[in-house]
Structure formats: structure tokens, C-alpha cells
């Protein structure tokens, strides 16, 4: 036999775990899902992840070239013992691109000015990074029109990233 205190505790436990899930349920039931968001057309999470992983590999390889434009900003991340930092950047990029293209979840990382504060990123560096994203999308088979859509979504962020 359960004591009343135990019963109460168990009920509370159940209520706690349901609290969030019911909220999510209601929200999802109410939100009309756009017919075909860019996120869906890209191929959803597997496609976004594939592009971001390729982008990270491109950026790291670029920092290893003699005339690298990204070395200055990315070397601290590429150093040994910092692989979690690169992984964390990759995770944030999945979240950010996922949301920006109409995916189901929200990016919870730093704002762009806060993330790039003190880096003093130049326009040349910005363009070099966008070029690596373009190459990543091409090598993962993203059609040209969808690449343009992605770049058009990210381009307005330039002013909050460059010269911060």
C-alpha cells in the first residue's frame, strides 16, 4: 500500500514530467506547418548536418593552407584539446541554419554580435567563410537556387558579424 505522501509525490513527479510535454503538444498542434520550408526542401536535419560538417572540414582545411584567410580567427579552435569547441560551433550552426531555413526548433546560442565580439572580423574574412559554406553546399549536392536562398538568409547577418 502506498502512503498518501508517496502517492502525492508520485503524482507530482508525473505532473512535472508532463508539464513540458503537454506544452509542446499544444504548441505543435496549433502551429500550422508551412507546406515546404527551405529546411524541408534541403532535406531536413540530415542535409543540414551534412552541409555543416562539410563546412567545418572545409574551414579547418582552409586554415592549413599557406595563404589562409580564416587562420587568424579559427586557429584557436583548431588547436589540440579544443575539439569540443569546434563541435560546439558545429552544433550551434546546425541549430541556427535549421531555424533560419524554417526548421522546427529554435537556435539558443549567442547573438551574432556577442558570438563574434572582439574578433574584429574583416569583410575579406567574412566572404572567405561564406565561400566555404558555398563549397560545402555544392559538394553535398544542394541545388544552386537553394544555395542562393541560404546565402540570402545569412547575408543580412554580415553587419552584426564584421568589425565587432
Amino acid at each position, binding site marked *: 500500500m502506498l502512503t498518501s*505522501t*508517496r502517492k502525492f*509525490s*508520485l503524482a*507530482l*513527479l508525473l505532473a*512535472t*514530467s*508532463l508539464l*513540458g*510535454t503537454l*506544452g*509542446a*503538444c499544444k504548441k*505543435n498542434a496549433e502551429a500550422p506547418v508551412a507546406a515546404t520550408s527551405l529546411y524541408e526542401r534541403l532535406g*531536413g*536535419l*540530415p542535409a*543540414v*548536418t*551534412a552541409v555543416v*560538417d*562539410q563546412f*567545418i*572540414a*572545409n*574551414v*579547418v*582545411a*582552409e*586554415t*592549413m*593552407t*599557406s595563404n589562409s584567410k580564416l587562420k587568424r580567427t579559427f*586557429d*584557436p579552435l*583548431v*588547436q*589540440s584539446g579544443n*575539439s*569540443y*569547441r*569546434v*563541435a*560546439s560551433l*558545429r*552544433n*550551434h550552426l*546546425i*541549430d541556427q541554419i*535549421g*531555424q533560419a531555413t524554417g526548421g*522546427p*526548433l*529554435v537556435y*539558443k546560442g549567442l547573438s551574432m554580435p556577442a558570438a563574434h*565580439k*572582439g*574578433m574584429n572580423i574583416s569583410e575579406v574574412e567574412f566572404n572567405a567563410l561564406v565561400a566555404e559554406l558555398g563549397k*560545402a553546399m555544392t559538394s553535398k549536392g544542394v541545388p544552386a537556387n537553394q544555395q542562393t536562398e541560404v546565402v540570402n538568409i545569412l547575408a543580412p547577418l554580415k553587419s552584426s558579424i564584421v568589425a565587432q
Partner: protein
Amino acid sequence: MRLGLGGLMALLLWANWQEPNLHDYSAPISVGALRVAGSLPATEAAKLHTQLIQMPGITACTVQAGAHAVAYTYRPDEITPAQVQQQLAPAFRVQTYEAPAAPVMGPQCPVPQGYIMALEKLRFALNLRRLFIAV
């Protein structure tokens, strides 16, 4: 008993407070980088790329032939950098590349990232909201 239940409730509340992140649904990765010794003509670079990308656990790779540079992302629970090097070794002379030490920019989190990632994993596992989200 009460303390245990209270703790469990707090844990569930913490885990379910927010929706999960999109990246929580994809396997975590790490990054590896290699330098290839000797010459690396375009055909060899292409071969290296093909061999690397076909290894289980490799999610992306880039070969910069001119710089003899290779960078790849991998799932650490499926393959290790040592295994990558071992599998490439018969055909290519590769060495692990580490960027030269550079000054750390900005404040550093005192908590090791490994702990943070483990906590994130736990939070996702206990987050029941994920059952209602299609990604």
C-alpha cells in the same frame, strides 16, 4: 525518499523546461586534421578523399592538395583519429596536424566542455518534449 523524489523532479523539470536543440538529434562529431608527407598530385588527393569519406564514422572530409592538408569530421564512438591514420597509412604518409598555439580569444569556460556535452546528452535523454517534435 522525499529528497530522492525531489531531486528526480528537479532533474525532470530541468530537462523538460525547454525544447531540445536541433543538433541534439544528430550524432556528435569531432574534428581531425592531417598533413600528407611527400607529393600529393590531384589524382592521389582524389583517391585519399574517396578512401577517407568511405570509412564508417567519417561524416565529411576536405583535401587541400596544394597544402597537403586533410581535415575531416568523424563520430568519435565509431572511429578514432588513430584508426583513420592506420587505414590511410599503407597508401599515404600522414601525420596528425595540430594548429600552432595561438592566444586564446575572449573568456574561457572553466567547466570542461566534455562535462557540458555529457550534461546536454542527459538533458536530451530526459526531455520528453522530443517525443512530440518531428525534425
